[in-house]
């Protein structure tokens, strides 16, 4: 935090130098004129890179597919209990697949020293964080949209409860996974054996959110009772942890 304040002060002392040297004035999206443009530029860059390479989506999709198939050998997917365990299976598959994408979040930026450049620029750190989190959110959402029909087919699912709640649960649950996952990916970046570190950090903290998603989905699928408690829990969880992430990200980014 102190580093950030000092850096801001130093940059404010030489405004002309930064605006010509750091920012490319030809492209209006990359100039640091306002907070939304940094967020938008970073997000669009990530989406464009993903659109061209399709690395994250492909690896996530295949991984989730494998989890579905492996699960079907471990449990009887067509039995009467399928509906009760399907909520758990879906979310565990998405969680595992999301970890694959989350782990790659910062890899490209580290390889090209973008993070170092970001640390010395005037761009607000939280814009970078939100852009990365939103990007991951979109990737995981695409995964969910593609995989859900597959689950319905493979596990003979039929929704008995109010189906309109499922997208709400999906959005809240996905954001809960992604916002913490993006943050912990930034932490695990600075440790040895980073690939292992991300799930080690993410899973324990995410247990309440995972429980909320699984239970809410199960309740909607079986139509047994009201999922209100779990949806409210997820919403509050999202709110609290988004706040914690945003208030701590600059500190972690500038950790030396």
């Amino acid at each position, binding site marked *: 935090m*102190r580093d950030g304040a000092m850096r801001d002060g130093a940059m404010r002392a030489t405004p002309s130098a930064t605006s010509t040297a750091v920012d490319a004035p030809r492209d209006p999206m990359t100039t640091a004129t306002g907070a939304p443009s940094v967020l938008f530029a970073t997000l669009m860059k990530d989406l464009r890179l993903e659109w061209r390479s399709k690395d994250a989506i492909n690896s996530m999709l295949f991984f989730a597919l494998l989890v579905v198939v492996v699960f079907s050998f471990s449990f009887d997917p067509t039995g009467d209990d399928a509906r009760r365990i399907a909520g758990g299976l879906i979310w565990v598959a998405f969680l595992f697949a999301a970890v694959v994408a989350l782990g790659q979040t910062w890899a490209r930026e580290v390889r090209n020293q973008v993070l170092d450049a970001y640390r010395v620029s005037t761009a607000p750190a939280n814009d970078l964080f939100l852009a990365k989190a939103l990007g991951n959110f979109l990737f995981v959402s695409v995964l969910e949209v593609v995989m859900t029909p597959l689950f319905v087919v493979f596990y003979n699912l039929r929704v008995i409860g109010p189906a309109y709640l499922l997208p709400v649960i999906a959005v809240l649950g996905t954001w809960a996974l992604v916002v*913490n996952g993006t*943050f912990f990916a930034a932490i695990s970046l600075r440790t040895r054996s980073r690939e292992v570190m991300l799930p080690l*950090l993410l899973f324990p903290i995410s*247990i309440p959110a995972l*429980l*909320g998603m699984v239970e809410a989905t199960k309740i909607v699928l079986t139509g047994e009772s009201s999922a209100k408690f*779990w949806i409210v829990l997820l919403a509050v969880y999202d709110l609290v942890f988004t706040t914690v992430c945003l208030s701590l990200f600059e500190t972690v980014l500038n*950790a030396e």
Partner: protein
Amino acid sequence: MKTPVLIAIALVVALLAFGLYQGLVVAPTEQTMGDVQRIFYYHVPSAWTGILLFTVNFVASIWYLFRRTTVSDSIAVTTAEVGLVFWTIVLITGPIWARPVWGIWWTWDARLTSTLVLWLIYVSYLIVRRFSSSGQTAVLAAALAVFGFADVPFVYLSIWFFRTQHPQPVIGGGGKLDPTMWHAVLYNWLAFSAFAALLCWFRYQLERKQRDVEETIALESLLEGSPR
């Protein structure tokens, strides 16, 4: 070893012995559970001590994020490690007690599961401390401590929503305990807290000395590299 430290050790040992005497001899035998219930005098004080230490860890981490002093980071690592030891005692004594009373070692009810999740969170905290390069450890760990502490209410609330098998909290839950049982619990808590404080003191001294050694080595290599 210096005299004040020896006196402190003697005091803690005396307190622990007195607590043990209170729990095993003075406190009456429980009506339905019998002597097995006496593990209560170790189980509950350990849990209270663990929670106390985790709270200190959280406060020290916040302090570190604002002030960046090595003292607060040393306190954070000390209390997390010692707190995890006491939390492990809770997780071990719990099943030993549950097996004769409930007939099962473990059940996935609210308090047991929350205890286990909290244990996992602090283990991951210590793993981050171990695996991060030394310059960044303090910041990353402090950030993670905030996440862990913010997670506790969610963990408890979410798991509590299932039906719970664990007895309701002793404090404020009716208070049907015999006064001598209360004495045994409170004396043991005092003894455990004193024991924890002593352990923290040693661990803190060790941490400071380790940091001094690291600093000295860094300084020496700097001096050797520069022209005399």
